[in-house]
C-alpha cells in the first residue's frame, strides 16, 4: 500500500508528488477538492514585490528575512525547481518561458500590469514591453472579460491598444458560458478558423492580439499557432477569472507525469487528522463516506495552502489552526493584531504571514524550535514567514518549496 502521502493538490503538492514519484516512492496525493491550480493565472511569480529582478531578490532575501522559505532552502534550490518545472512543461509540449533575470509584465483582465518570471508560451506575446499596437479581443458571452475596458486601461498607461468583441459562430452557440466552455470550443479547429478570420478582419495595425486565456485544453500551443496563421498577428492569452484554463492544463500535465512515475492523485478526500509518536507521523485519516479512510504513513508532505487555500483556519475566538495535522501555527498572538486598519495597507495584514514554521529541511517545528515530526515536510503557502501575495511570490514559493520538500522527503532515510 502507498505510505508516502502528499496532502494538497496545488502547485506545491504536485511538485512534491512529482519529486517523490520520480524517486520511486509511489506517492498518494490526497486533496479536499480541486484547488489552487484552478484558481490561479498559471504563471509563476518568483518575486515581484519591488523593482529588483527575481534573481537579486532571491540572493538578498536571507540577509533581511532569514526565515523566509526561499532563505531556508536557498537560491540554488529555487533554480533547481525551475529547471525541473520547465523540463516538465516542455515534455508536455506546453513550454514555460522567462527566467530569473527579469520579470515580464503581462496585462491582466482589468488592463493592469502584472509581473511574472515564468509564463506559458501562450502568454509570451503579451509582454507589454514588446511595443506596437495591441488588439484585445473577447466575447460578450464571456463575463468579466471586457476588451474595451482592458484596452482603455492599457492606453491610459501609455500602451496603444484597442478592444473588440468577436462573434461566436452560430453552430457553436451555447446558452451558458464559462472559460472552460470556451476552451472546449477552441479545441475545435473549425471554431478556431472562424475566430482567426474575424481577428484578421479586425486586426488593423495591431501586431499583437490578446485573447482570454481559454485557447484550448488539449493543445493550446497548436491553437495559438493556428490563430496566428489565420490572423497574421502574434496571439497571447490573458488570464481570466476562475476556473483558470491555464491552471487546468497545469494540473492535467502534473497528474499525468505523477501517474506515469507511479504516483496517484485522489481528489475529494480531505485529510482531517493525523496521529504519530516519537516524532514520527504514523497515520492520517481522510474524510470518506460513513467513516474515515485510514492511511498508514512512512513519509508525508503537507501542502494544504494558507489562510486563503484552507490549510489554516481561524475563528472569531482568535484560534488559528492548521487543519490537516493540527501542527503548531506561527501567527499574531491575538486577534486584534491580525489586520492593519487600512484595507490596502502597503505593509499587508499580519494574519497572511501566519503559517507553519519549519527548520531548514522544511520539517515542522513547534514554538520551542523542536521538530514535531521527522518524517513530515511542509511546502507552499502553508509555510510561515512569508506574505506571498504582497511579495508576488506565491507560485514561486509553491514551486520551489514543493520540489525541495519532495526531494528532502525522498532522501529521508533513503
Amino acid at each position, binding site marked *: *500500500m*502507498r505510505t508516502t502521502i502528499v496532502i494538497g493538490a496545488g502547485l506545491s503538492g504536485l511538485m512534491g508528488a512529482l519529486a517523490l514519484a520520480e524517486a520511486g516512492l509511489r506517492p*498518494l496525493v490526497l486533496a*479536499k*477538492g*480541486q*484547488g489552487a491550480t*484552478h*484558481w490561479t493565472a498559471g504563471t509563476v511569480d518568483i518575486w515581484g514585490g519591488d523593482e529588483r529582478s527575481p534573481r537579486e531578490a532571491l540572493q538578498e532575501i536571507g540577509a533581511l528575512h532569514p526565515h523566509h522559505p526561499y532563505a531556508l532552502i536557498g537560491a540554488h534550490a529555487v533554480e533547481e525547481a525551475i529547471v525541473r518545472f520547465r523540463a516538465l512543461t516542455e515534455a508536455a509540449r506546453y513550454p514555460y518561458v522567462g527566467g530569473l533575470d527579469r520579470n515580464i509584465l503581462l496585462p491582466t483582465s482589468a488592463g493592469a500590469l502584472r509581473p511574472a518570471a515564468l509564463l506559458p508560451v501562450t502568454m509570451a506575446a503579451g509582454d507589454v514591453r514588446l511595443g506596437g499596437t495591441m488588439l484585445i479581443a473577447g466575447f460578450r458571452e464571456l463575463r468579466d472579460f471586457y476588451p474595451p475596458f482592458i484596452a482603455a486601461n492599457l492606453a491610459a498607461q501609455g500602451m496603444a491598444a484597442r478592444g473588440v468583441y468577436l462573434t461566436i459562430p452560430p453552430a457553436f452557440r*451555447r*446558452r*451558458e458560458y*464559462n*472559460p*472552460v*466552455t470556451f476552451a*472546449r470550443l477552441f479545441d475545435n479547429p473549425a471554431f478556431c478558423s472562424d475566430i482567426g478570420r474575424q481577428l484578421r478582419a479586425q486586426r488593423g495595425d495591431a501586431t499583437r492580439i490578446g485573447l482570454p486565456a481559454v485557447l484550448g485544453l488539449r493543445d493550446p500551443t497548436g491553437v495559438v499557432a493556428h490563430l496566428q496563421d489565420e490572423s497574421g498577428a502574434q496571439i497571447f492569452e490573458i488570464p481570466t477569472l*476562475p*476556473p483558470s484554463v491555464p491552471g*487546468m492544463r497545469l494540473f492535467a500535465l502534473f*497528474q499525468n507525469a505523477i*501517474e506515469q512515475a507511479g504516483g*496517484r492523485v*485522489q*481528489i*475529494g*478526500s*480531505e485529510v482531517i487528522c493525523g496521529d504519530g509518536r516519537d516524532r514520527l507521523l504514523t497515520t492520517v485519516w*481522510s*474524510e*470518506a*463516506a*460513513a*467513516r474515515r*479512510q*485510514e492511511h*498508514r504513513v512512512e513519509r508525508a508532505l503537507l501542502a494544504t495552502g494558507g489562510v486563503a487555500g*484552507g490549510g489554516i483556519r481561524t475563528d472569531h475566538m482568535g484560534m488559528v489552526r492548521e487543519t490537516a495535522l493540527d501542527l503548531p501555527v506561527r501567527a499574531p498572538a491575538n486577534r486584534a493584531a491580525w489586520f492593519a486598519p487600512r484595507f490596502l495597507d502597503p505593509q499587508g495584514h499580519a494574519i497572511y504571514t501566519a503559517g507553519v514554521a519549519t527548520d531548514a529541511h522544511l520539517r515542522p517545528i513547534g514554538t520551542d524550535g523542536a521538530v514535531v515530526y521527522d518524517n513530515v515536510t511542509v511546502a507552499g503557502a502553508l509555510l510561515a514567514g512569508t506574505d506571498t501575495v504582497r511579495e508576488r511570490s506565491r507560485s514561486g514559493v509553491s514551486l520551489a518549496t514543493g520540489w525541495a520538500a519532495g526531494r528532502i522527503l525522498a532522501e529521508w532515510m533513503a
Partner: protein
Amino acid sequence: MMIIPEDHIEQSLEASLDHCIKCNICTAACPVSAVTDLFPGPKYVGPQAQRFRHARQPSPDESVDYCSGCRVCNEVCPTGVRIAELNARARARLVAERGIPLRNRLISRSGLVGRLGAGPHAPIANALLGSKPLRMVIERTLGIAREAPLPAFSRYTFRSWFRRRRAPQIDAGTPKRQVVYFHGCSANYYEPWIGKAVVAVLEHNGFEVLLPRQRCCGLPLLSNGDFAAARRAHEENVAFLAPYALRTIPIVGASTSCTLTLKEEAPELLGMQSDTVRAVAQQTYDIFEFLRLLHMRGELRTDFRPIERTLPYHPPCQLRAHRIGRPALDVLELVPGLRLIETHAGCCGIAGTYGLKVEKYRISMDVGAPLFETVRRSGADMALCDSETCRWQISHGAGVVARHPIEILAEAYGLVT
C-alpha cells in the same frame, strides 16, 4: 405532505452554501453541462438556486432534473459544498410538487423489475426487450429510450444458486470469520456470476458468507426523487442488516452504488440518523475497500497466478463518491503481470436510470463519448468497472465487454465461478 423533514443534515447543507465562493470549478468539471444547455451547471442549480428555495414557494429551477447525480461537483469542490445532495433534495421537492411519472416509478423499482424478468422465463423477457418494434412502442408509451442499454435477465437468481449450492468447507483450524454479502439487484437478477465471484473470493480468504434478507438499496428511487419509497426501502434494509452490523460483522457489496447508498446516500438524503442506521452504514464496505483493508492488516491471501494483460479501468462516479481512492487498483496491482490503466474520462453518462430516459439518452451518450473513445483507443477487448449500469453503458458505447474487477481477482486466485 412533508417529504423532506427538517433535520440537521438539511441545516448543514444550508450552511454549506456559504462556503460557495462561485469559483465555478464544479461547472468546469460537470459532465452534463459540458454537453447540453438543458443543465446550466452545479453552481447555478445547486448553491445558487438553493437560496431561492423555500418551503411554501414553488421550486424556482426545474433544470435540476437534468442533474445526473454523478457527484463530480462534490469531488472537485475546493470548499466542501455538498452540491450533489442539494440537487437531489431539490429534485425530490419537484417530484413532491408534481408527482412521479409512471416511467420513473417503473425504472426506479429495480427489485420489482428483476423479480418479474429473472428466472426460467428470462429468455422470453429478454427476447421481448430485444425486439426493436417493441422497444419503439415502449419508447412511445413509457419514454424509455429504444437504444438505451437494458441488461439481460438471468435464468436463475443469485440467491437461488446460493441456497442450492453445497455448503463450503471451512478449515476447522482457522478462526471463523463472518461477512454479510449485500448482492443488490444486479447480481441477483442480471449478473449472478459477479455474486459467485464475490462469494468465491471471500471464502478463499477464509470467510463464511452470510446472506440475510435484503431488498433494493433504493438508490434509483432516490435519484428519481421518490424519497418516500426510498425511505421504506432503507428502513427495511436496516432492519435486515442491523443485527449483523451491531455484532460488527462487515457488510460487503460489489455494487458500488448499493454500498454508497447504505453508507451515506440514504441516511443523508432522507435525514435518517438513528444509531442502527449509523451502525449499518459504518459496517458497510465496498468489496475492494474491504479486500484492501484485509491486505493492510496482512490478512489477504496473495496466492495469485499471473495474468499478463493490460486493461482500461473506469472508476465509476458512485465509487469516487465513497472518497476511498481506487481500491480495485490497489488490490489488483498485487496480481503479477496485470496492468490496469485508469481512464480519467469523467463519467460514462448513464448515471443509473438517467440514460434510460428518452429525453436524456442523447445527453448520456455525449457525456460518455470521451470514455468510450478512451476504451476503444486502448485496444483492449475488455474494460473493468465497479458499477453495473456503467458496465452496461460502456459495453453499449464502446462495444467491448465490461467486467467487474472482482471477476479478474477470482480468475487470478484460480477460482472458477
